[in-house]
């Protein structure tokens, strides 16, 4: 009797003392990665309780400013206005890059077009450019392939390349990057996009930021060193430099183990030095 009472008390105090309740909110692009990190982290840290939800980068930043989330996942930096709003509310946003992301543009191997500018890509996917001849290729209609509209890649490409305009309606949307790659590999005049890890049987087009800048081929290196134009850093925002449980979680995601998970779910891990530098000591 006495023994069991002690056990109950011990359990209760244990639970009270170390229940690390962490909420993560924000970018829909990052929500999948955040969930995987949370799952793996909770496996090795059974006392941690992490809740991950999406809603978009804007939602996450608003939640951070209102103090309703511990970590905000963001697929872009905060705008100046958002920094000001945060400071006005006594929040001191602390930004850490946790992973990288890059999107490659695919075409058929026989297609003579080797590079496109971001403007040309926008024109192609919004329907202003309809013929390969307009971008230096053969005279034939451009056949557009893309992802389904539930995909993060779809949203990212729309936001980053199309500047939030709509995809032209005759864009064929396929379930999964694998299907896009397959379709483009069989379509002489096709164009598609997807994560840079993909691309067997298709050509990766070089992408130019401006008409006069040099074309850059997508690769882990060019994404890592920031020269490839359709790439970005993915961030976690904290309120001030993270301490305690938050710091432990952040440092774990930046450890080789955490970065390996990022690679597993098709993001690009941070360069080793950068990951180490971003850890909070």
């Amino acid at each position, binding site marked *: 009797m006495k023994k069991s009472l002690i056990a109950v008390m011990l359990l209760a105090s244990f639970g009270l003392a170390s229940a690390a309740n962490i909420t993560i909110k924000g970018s829909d692009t990052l929500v999948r990665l955040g969930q995987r990190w949370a799952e793996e982290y909770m496996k090795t840290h059974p006392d941690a309780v992490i809740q991950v939800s999406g809603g978009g980068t804007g939602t996450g930043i608003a939640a951070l400013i209102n103090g309703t989330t511990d970590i905000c996942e963001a697929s872009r930096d905060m705008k100046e206005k958002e920094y000001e709003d945060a400071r006005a509310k006594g929040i001191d946003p602390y930004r850490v890059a946790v992973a990288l992301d890059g999107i490659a543009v695919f075409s058929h191997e026989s297609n003579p077009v080797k590079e496109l500018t971001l403007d040309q890509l926008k024109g192609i996917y919004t329907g202003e450019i309809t013929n390969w001849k307009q971008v230096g290729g053969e005279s034939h209609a451009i056949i557009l392939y893309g992802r389904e*509209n*539930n995909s993060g890649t*779809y949203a990212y490409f729309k936001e980053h390349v199309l500047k939030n305009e*709509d995809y032209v309606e005759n864009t*064929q949307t*396929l379930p999964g990057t694998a*299907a896009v790659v*397959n379709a483009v590999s069989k*379509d002489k005049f096709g164009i598609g996009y997807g994560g840079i890890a993909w691309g067997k049987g298709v050509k990766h087009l070089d992408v130019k930021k401006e008409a006069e800048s040099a074309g850059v081929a997508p690769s882990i290196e060019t994404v890592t060193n920031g020269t490839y134009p359709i790439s970005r850093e993915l961030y976690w925002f904290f309120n001030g430099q993270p301490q305690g449980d938050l710091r432990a979680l952040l440092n774990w995601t930046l450890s080789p183990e955490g970065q390996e998970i990022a690679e597993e779910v098709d993001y690009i891990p941070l360069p080793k030095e950068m990951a180490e530098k971003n850890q909070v000591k």
Partner: protein
Amino acid sequence: MKTYNFKPKSRIRDFIVEKFIMLNALTALIVILLIFIFIFKESIPIFTSHKVQQEASLDKLILKQQYYEGREPKWSWQPNSDVPKYSLLPLFLGTLKAAIVAMLFSVPLAVGAAIYSSEFAPRKIREFIKPVIELLAGIPSVVLGFFALIVLASILQSLFGFTYRLNAINAGIALGIAIIPIIFTIAEDAMTSVPQSLREAAMALGANPWQISFTVVLPAALPGIAAGIVLGFGRAIGETMIVLMASGNAAIISGGFTESIRTLSATIAAELAEVVFGSAHYNVLFFIGTLLFVFTFLVNLGGELVLNRLKERLQGRSR
């Protein structure tokens, strides 16, 4: 030798067992009803919620809309846009196009095969053909879709020079392959159940096998064949995986069959998984589900009714 005796005392047990299997039969009915109620419930905000109606009221789903100032009004399905666009018309058109191609492809093949199998084939061949065609029904639709995406699309493109590899014809033919066994089985059953006496009477009048098949058996079995076609059409409307993979999923308004299409069912499959719970988009997808449910239900009901009528007539029970 083993003997069986059926004692009257087992009646109570019979009663219990009978009620139990009746309950099993009812389960299906209850499940269908519950599914319908749930799907319909989730689409109600389109009719009641002011907030949802700002994005997706009934007229926005059907009528041409002017989304941007200074641009042509149009029908457009772009749910993830700055200005969400939820026109169902391109999706309806896509569904219809795929189903039409599927029917044009499968009906002649399936009915022809049924005529051959029931009227002309020697017994041995018949016993081979029938199960083989019915085996087609066992191919998972995702496999058929994958086949259409990888193989069929390339073959059709090299044969006919389509601009778009994935188009209504490609998806329709793959769909047609899926519904051939449905039409074949029902049509074949209808023809074989035409009474032998009719055939014998025609033969006595000097008709040859062709005349018997086309002027006696075929007309007598026509309602059954029609029922098979109707049931096949129902499947063509509701089938998802094949069109999701083989049609290109581009929501366009055009009369051409060589362009990509996006169907109602594929739209649900592609978008429901990650839609924001309770948003207008979510409600619209459930509304599409309700429409599909009602439509395929009515089509299937019609097919079954015709089929029952035919059975009664051929067995001489009606009138």
